[in-house]
């Protein structure tokens, strides 16, 4: 089954390009560490999922590029073409001249309706190229105007036009200390709208990835390209083909569907966090060895203690005692999960024991622990890492950052600052209040796990 990717705004397009690059370089690599047959099956599956074959033999990404100003798309198209290994179709992008001015209302209420037909035509064309459509992945940031506002509008359109397809929104959360001053408003508006139309939100926070770049990748002068490459690696570890049923029955034919089934049992809880270990500079890879027990132990503690990366994990945090009455306070800093998915890739993957993730004390009480935890094991190694483990988690991972964003936005809203910029494009105070209400509900639900 194929996934159509919609890249929205500067961030969406910059990351989208890195994702396709990473996927392509992974399947071209010779570090699969598995049988030739397995490797070929992996390559075919990835190509079917993300690329379409053209007469020239160069794989064409199944993607639609959207931006309200031309510079980023033109850069993205040319960078892809220059690689020689893959490219974007010449007819799959839509751009305008003026940008959205970091204004969610401009993206949603003005650009959205104005360009709906043109954009949805491009999406329809890409969807028709797929023999079997597995759903949509949108990539956007929520701080600006296009990715956030137009992104929310496009997601709604996707939902209306493809009511039975899966929609996964990959959303990038901005640095806490402003990239954009009105980022909290834009974020609140985006998240609340996405919650109504998409199936799940897969989140990356710039602050977290920045730390990974600084402390694990040892990059001195971190650029957005570095950040985007780490994000692409993490997304690749989730979206590359994986065996979902118990070994040997081929790669998943319905990646997004499997993801949703594993992780979103209840519509109120749709925020997914992502962790991937190990993460290190490519030059260190030949000198490092890993064991599955070690990786799994670290990943589990990262889940429990809500650690953002494999360094600095707080090992003191423990799950609550199994006999604990549900009304007794859970231990401080303990991250309760609704559902978790662990994806293991690499050497001897079948020897890996994930029993520790099935511990019922990790989870909220209203789901059977067998249903709450899923594991996908794939012997084919990913992106030169001999062993890698990814965790996609529907848990309280994002509770604090979400609460912080809503708090700051509320603070600004109370002083009415910047509201005139939104009302002039049709987003009124009542609309803001509705969005705040939606998100406070989400926060409350996650808090009371």
């Amino acid at each position, binding site marked *: 089954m194929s996934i159509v990717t919609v890249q929205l705004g500067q961030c969406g397009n910059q990351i989208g390009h890195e994702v396709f690059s990473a996927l392509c370089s992974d399947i071209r690599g010779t570090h699969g560490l598995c049988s030739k047959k397995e490797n070929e099956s992996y390559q075919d599956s990835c190509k079917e999922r993300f690329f379409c074959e053209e007469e020239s033999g160069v794989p064409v990404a199944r993607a639609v590029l959207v931006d309200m100003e031309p510079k980023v798309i033109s850069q993205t198209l040319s960078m892809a073409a220059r690689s020689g290994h893959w490219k974007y179709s010449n007819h799959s992008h839509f751009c305008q001249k003026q940008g959205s001015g970091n204004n969610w209302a401009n993206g949603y209420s003005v650009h959205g309706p104005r360009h709906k037909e043109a954009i949805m035509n491009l999406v329809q064309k890409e969807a028709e190229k797929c023999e079997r459509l597995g759903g949509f992945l949108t990539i956007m940031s929520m701080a600006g105007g296009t990715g956030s506002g137009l992104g929310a509008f496009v997601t709604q359109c996707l939902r209306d036009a493809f009511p039975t397809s899966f929609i996964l929104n990959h959303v990038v959360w901005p640095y806490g*200390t402003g990239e954009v001053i009105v980022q909290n408003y834009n974020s609140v508006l985006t998240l609340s709208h996405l919650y109504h139309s998409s199936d799940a939100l897969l989140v990356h926070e710039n602050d977290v990835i*920045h730390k990974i770049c600084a402390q694990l990748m040892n990059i001195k002068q971190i650029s957005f390209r570095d950040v985007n490459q780490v994000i692409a690696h993490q997304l690749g570890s989730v979206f590359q083909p994986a065996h979902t049923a118990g070994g040997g029955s081929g790669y998943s034919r319905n990646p997004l569907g499997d993801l949703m089934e594993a992780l979103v049992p209840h519509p109120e809880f749709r925020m997914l966090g992502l962790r991937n270990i190990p993460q290190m500079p490519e030059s260190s890879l030949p000198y490092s060895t890993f064991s599955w027990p070690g990786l799994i132990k670290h990943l589990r503690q990262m889940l429990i203690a809500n650690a953002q990366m494999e360094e600095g994990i707080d090992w003191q945090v423990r799950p609550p005692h199994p006999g604990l009455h549900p009304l007794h306070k859970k231990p401080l800093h303990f991250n309760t999960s609704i559902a978790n998915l662990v994806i293991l890739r690499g050497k001897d993957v079948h020897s890996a024991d994930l029993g520790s993730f099935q511990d019922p004390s990790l989870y909220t009480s209203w789901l059977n622990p067998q249903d709450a935890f899923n594991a996908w094991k794939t012997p084919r190694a990913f992106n030169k890492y001999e062993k890698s483990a990814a965790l996609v988690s529907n848990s309280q991972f994002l509770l604090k950052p979400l609460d912080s964003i809503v708090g700051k936005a509320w603070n600004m809203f109370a002083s009415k600052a910047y509201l005139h910029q939104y009302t002039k494009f049709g987003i009124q105070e009542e609309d803001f209040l509705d969005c705040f209400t939606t998100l406070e509900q989400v926060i409350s639900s996650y808090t009371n796990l």
Partner: protein
Amino acid sequence: MTQSVVVQVGQCGNQVGCRFWDLALREHAAVNKKGMYDEALSSFFRNVDTRVVCLLTEFKFFPFSKALLIDMEEGVVNEILQGPLRDVFDSKQLITDVSGSGNNWAVGHKIYGCQYRENIVEKLRKTAEHCDSLQCFFIIHSMGGGTGSGLGTFVLNLLEEEFPEVYRFVTSVYPSGEDDVITSPYNSVLAMKELNEHADCVLPIENESLFEIVNKIHQMINSGKLGSTVKQNSLVTSSAGSAKTQVKPFDAMNNIVANLLLNLTSSARFEGSLNMDLNEISMNLVPFPRLHYLVSSLTPLYTLADVNVPSRRLDQMFSDAFSRDHQLIQADPKHSLYLACALLVRGNVQVSDLRRNIERLKPSLQFVSWNQEGWKTGLCSVPPVGHSHSLLALANNTCVKPTFIELKDRFMKLYKKKAHLHHYLQIDGMEQSCFSEAVSSLSDLIEEYNELDATKGGPRVDPSRLKIAV
């Protein structure tokens, strides 16, 4: 590509504008090696034909500016048309008269405004037609005289009426206390009312600050303290390469303003990892419609000849942007309240450098309670000519308040004695109420800043959040 039109009004406006076009051409020539018309150039220039240009040998075409030159006396515009930039403008972009406005806002606004209204609208329309996507008008003028101040604000009004969706950025040169035009306070306050009501963003500039910057640079060069030589064309005050023409007295100062405009628009013209367009500047820096006065500062003012830039020097650049001597008005943002701040960096600077410096500088700056992280950032990969990197900081800060208060005081000094009032009141359409409305508009503005200042330093009480029934 977002496109802009520059409207330069009056002597000051045209002299600054002239410097802007010169520097813009040099910047694009340095980046655009092939000399062909490209997207970046389309932001300010239009392509007319492909003949080889004799004068501007960097380009293989005539880069006609998207500009309107307006002056009510001919001297300045004529000089421009005889200078090295003559081919950049064509006669259809000019509106001139003979006798000037006599330093009288009313003459500029009411008499010439009326007289030239249709002419101006027609020429604006023509210029706008050359843009397939017009985003912004830049008005350059001074506040203290008659044409720039009066006719300039008349044009501002016109732009709002005729092109309501296009942003209006105004670069206004404010008169200093020792201005030699006696009626400059009247002209300025009358113009302020128009700026309050019709501009999207105003970048106030004071000659005193420009003068101090120029002096500082001269001192640096002459003192020889630096050890290594300063790169000539890196001076923010230099008219790079125009060694043949006589350097006029205000040229150095005007170059600073021209550089400000170049840096402001750089992210719209060139690529970068985090673009910052003009509409984003207006969106992020204007929390309330009337509080749209932005204090600007530019660094560096010059580059030393050695090319390697240790990050210490990069950090110094950020610190400088917040120091008094780099501001383009006589104000001290560091000790007042920030409503919002934008940093537009050009050159080989990455997001980690930005973050590090914001973290470093934040503790010493006071931000209003509802905008504690009020930073807007942009990264443009193309540095200005002669530099490896540069920074433009735009702050919406209550430090403009003293400037406005002083202006109001100077106005009141004259107004109480009714000095020179008759020159204005004898103009058709001018009444006493024009003056009282103007000063009241200014007072209201000052009051808005006062209210914000009052929140400074007080205990921070966050409003309570919405409660959800569980």
